């Protein structure tokens, strides 16, 4: 047996692709039930999956895909019309397949009960299932008919040889029909078959045990005829008897022995005169993710040392190395761009599964709506992408469940009967903006402020789709942890729009270096709205909190020195206005140092659980600087 393990990874990767193809195509097919190219693609995907499963020996997966493929083939040849029920059933099968593949991936080998699914699948094409009759024995002793005799006689007169040929296929031979057809086809190249037992159509259908008999006329010798048949694999035995004119056939049994060598026609060596094949569009290789991460890390280190070199050269004024250093700077930033690009994935990776989910939601909730996706080619760092699914699922479910009204209510409101939920993504500077919008009921203005609060829910009823009040705060937390922000705008009876801003990448960021007491910290630049120089009097006490009036709004002020327990005696203060969603905060710091590109190094070990910091970075002079997790600091600042 082969060592299958090395194929496993590949198998799962490719399976995922084909499942995705099936998923997309089924959705398409539901919209355009007669589109031949879609049906073809579905058929191919199912077929390939089946072959792969069979080769890996995954029996359940094989039989499920096999039955699915049958349905597709009925659709393909037009015997079955695509209906919503069929699509739903096929989706059910896809879910099962996914489950099976997931378990296999985790090396859980479970017995699945797929009988019901198989039965349902089979019912679809019931009338078409082939009825292969078994036990259709070949009658070897059957006499040659009179008409055949006459043909044989006249053929022999014309110098032909007549043979009675019995071919016995291997017991494990598959596609017997095609195998026998191969024999027939081969023989017809050198003569004429005047009789076959079973009849030709039965032969082609494979409706015989393992033997079939032919009466064959040819000018070729018996050896040549034997060789012709012997060139074909999966044949156990070939018996050829020459039929004499008086039919006292000189029987000779020839075993399919290796001594009977086949003459080989040598392939003409035509040389490599043809032009080399042009490059194909998708030349790609698969790279293990850990290697990519390692590469990223090395580039990060390079950036750090480049910064150090910069620092040294400016301190010692080495004129000679400046131009070289410039080159290094250019190359490292190119390298940095490149590694970032390598890590980028289109958001379609997560977006792809939503059309299916929305379809199911529409059915479950009995609501009518269109689901539109735009900008799925927008790219994001893969770490961000992998974290993005969950919050988006939440927002989309909310839009369908709470946003979109039932058709009758929409009609009363004078809206189109069918709602619209839109998911869009686009790049804006070094941010990616993702929006989830619906044209549904909207959120009451008194609720908008509370929407991201823990435990907040507008529905009294809890269903399995949404309404538990957990969720939106988790969504916000998640987005913040990705270094992004989320915002909502809504108008009653018009709809809502959630806007998520995400950084393009997590590892290298633009930062603002600040000083509190004697300590230097880095702040991600992306979330800073403005920096203002303020006097102490401008900070107003309001109850237990301190606030600052920013654009006619009282915003909470967080004193970083107190927050981080650092002693600070500076009178000059700077307030950094942070915008997190709709709520701005002010961070009070002593001094601004400047803007710098930094590489985030994750904190490890015990430090991992310190909430105030995103990570650390190494500066040009070798100093280690902590990067503040502004989201967490502000979130806590609010409760105080």
């Amino acid at each position: 047996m082969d060592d299958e393990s090395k194929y496993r990874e590949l198998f799962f990767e490719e399976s995922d692709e084909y499942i995705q193809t099936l998923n997309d195509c089924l959705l398409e097919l539901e919209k355009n039930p007669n589109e031949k190219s879609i049906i073809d693609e579905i058929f191919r995907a199912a077929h390939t999956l089946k072959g792969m499963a069979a080769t890996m020996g995954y029996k359940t997966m094989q039989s499920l895909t096999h039955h699915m493929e049958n349905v597709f083939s009925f659709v393909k040849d037009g015997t079955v019309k695509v209906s919503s029920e069929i699509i739903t059933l096929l989706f059910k099968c896809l879910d099962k397949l996914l489950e099976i593949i997931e378990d296999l991936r985790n090396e859980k080998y479970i017995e699945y009960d797929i009988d019901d699914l198989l039965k349902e699948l089979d019912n679809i094409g019931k009338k078409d299932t082939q009825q292969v009759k078994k036990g259709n024995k070949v009658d070897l002793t059957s006499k040659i008919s009179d008409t055949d005799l006459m043909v044989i006689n006249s053929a022999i007169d014309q110098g032909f040889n007549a043979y009675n040929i019995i071919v016995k296929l291997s017991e494990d031979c598959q596609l017997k029909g095609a195998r026998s057809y191969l024999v027939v086809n081969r023989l017809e190249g050198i003569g004429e078959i005047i009789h076959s037992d079973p009849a030709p159509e039965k032969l082609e259908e494979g409706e015989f045990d393992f033997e079939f008999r032919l009466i064959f006329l040819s000018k070729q010798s018996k050896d040549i005829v034997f060789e012709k048949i012997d060139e074909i694999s999966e044949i156990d035995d070939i018996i050829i008897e020459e039929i004499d004119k008086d039919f006292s056939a000189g029987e000779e049994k020839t075993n399919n022995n290796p001594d009977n060598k086949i003459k080989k026609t040598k392939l003409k060596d035509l040389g490599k005169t043809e032009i080399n094949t042009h490059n194909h569009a998708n030349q790609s290789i698969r790279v293990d993710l850990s290697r990519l991460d390692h590469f990223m890390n090395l580039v990060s280190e390079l950036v750090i040392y480049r910064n150090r070199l910069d620092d040294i050269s400016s301190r010692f004024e080495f004129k000679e190395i400046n131009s070289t250093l410039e080159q290094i700077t250019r190359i490292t930033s190119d390298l940095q761009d490149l590694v970032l690009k390598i890590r980028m994935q289109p958001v379609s990776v997560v977006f792809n599964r939503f059309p299916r989910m929305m379809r199911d939601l529409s059915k479950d909730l009995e609501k009518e709506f269109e689901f539109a996706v735009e900008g799925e080619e927008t790219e994001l760092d893969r770490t961000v992408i992998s974290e993005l699914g969950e919050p988006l699922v939440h927002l989309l479910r909310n839009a369908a469940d709470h946003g979109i009204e039932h058709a009758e209510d929409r009609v009363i409101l004078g809206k189109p009967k069918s709602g619209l939920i839109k998911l869009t993504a686009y790049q804006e500077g070094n941010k990616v903006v993702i929006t989830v919008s619906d044209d549904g009921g909207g959120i009451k203005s008194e609720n908008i402020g509370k929407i991201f609060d823990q435990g907040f829910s507008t529905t009294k009823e809890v269903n399995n789709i949404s309404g538990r009040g957990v969720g939106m705060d988790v969504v916000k937390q998640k987005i913040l942890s990705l270094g992004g922000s989320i915002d909502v705008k809504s108008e009653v009876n018009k709809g809502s729009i959630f806007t998520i801003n995400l950084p393009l990448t997590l590892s290298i960021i633009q930062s603002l270096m600040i000083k509190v007491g004697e300590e230097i910290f880095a702040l991600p630049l992306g979330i800073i709205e403005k920096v203002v120089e303020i006097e102490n009097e401008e900070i107003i006490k309001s109850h237990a909190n301190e606030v600052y009036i920013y654009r006619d709004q009282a915003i909470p002020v967080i004193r970083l020195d107190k927050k981080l327990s650092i002693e600070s005696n500076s009178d000059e203060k700077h307030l950094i206005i942070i915008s997190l969603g709709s709520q701005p905060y002010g961070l009070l710091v002593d001094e601004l140092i400047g803007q710098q590109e930094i590489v985030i190094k994750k904190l490890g070990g015990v430090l991992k659980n310190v909430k105030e910091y995103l990570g650390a970075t190494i500066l040009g002079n070798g100093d280690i600087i902590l990067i503040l997790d502004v989201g967490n600091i502000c979130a806590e600042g609010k409760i105080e």
Partner: protein
Amino acid sequence: MPKRVLIVDDAIFMRMKLKDILEKGGFEVVAESQNGMEAIEKYKSERPDLVTMDITMPEMDGVAALKEIMAIDPNAKVIMCSAMGQQSMVMEAIQSGALDFIVKPFDNERVIKSINKVIG
């Protein structure tokens, strides 16, 4: 000199599997193609002793590719790779000049036997 084989299949997985079987059987896999179009190009440039041709593939399926290859080289030796239930496609392929066919899932021994029959 080992016989030179071109593997045509749209699934990398299948190609790897087949390549493994063939190489263990003492054949040299000179090229791999993932669809019919590529297969024709590779056939022209490599002139392999044998082609294993999957039937269902995107761009151009195996039977169409077989026909093209037979037109380029009437002596081309092509073995079709088929799954159960593709009888009619296999027959069409045989009619178009395929010398043999193997049925998925591949049985190592059977694949090697079939190929040996065709190119010895």
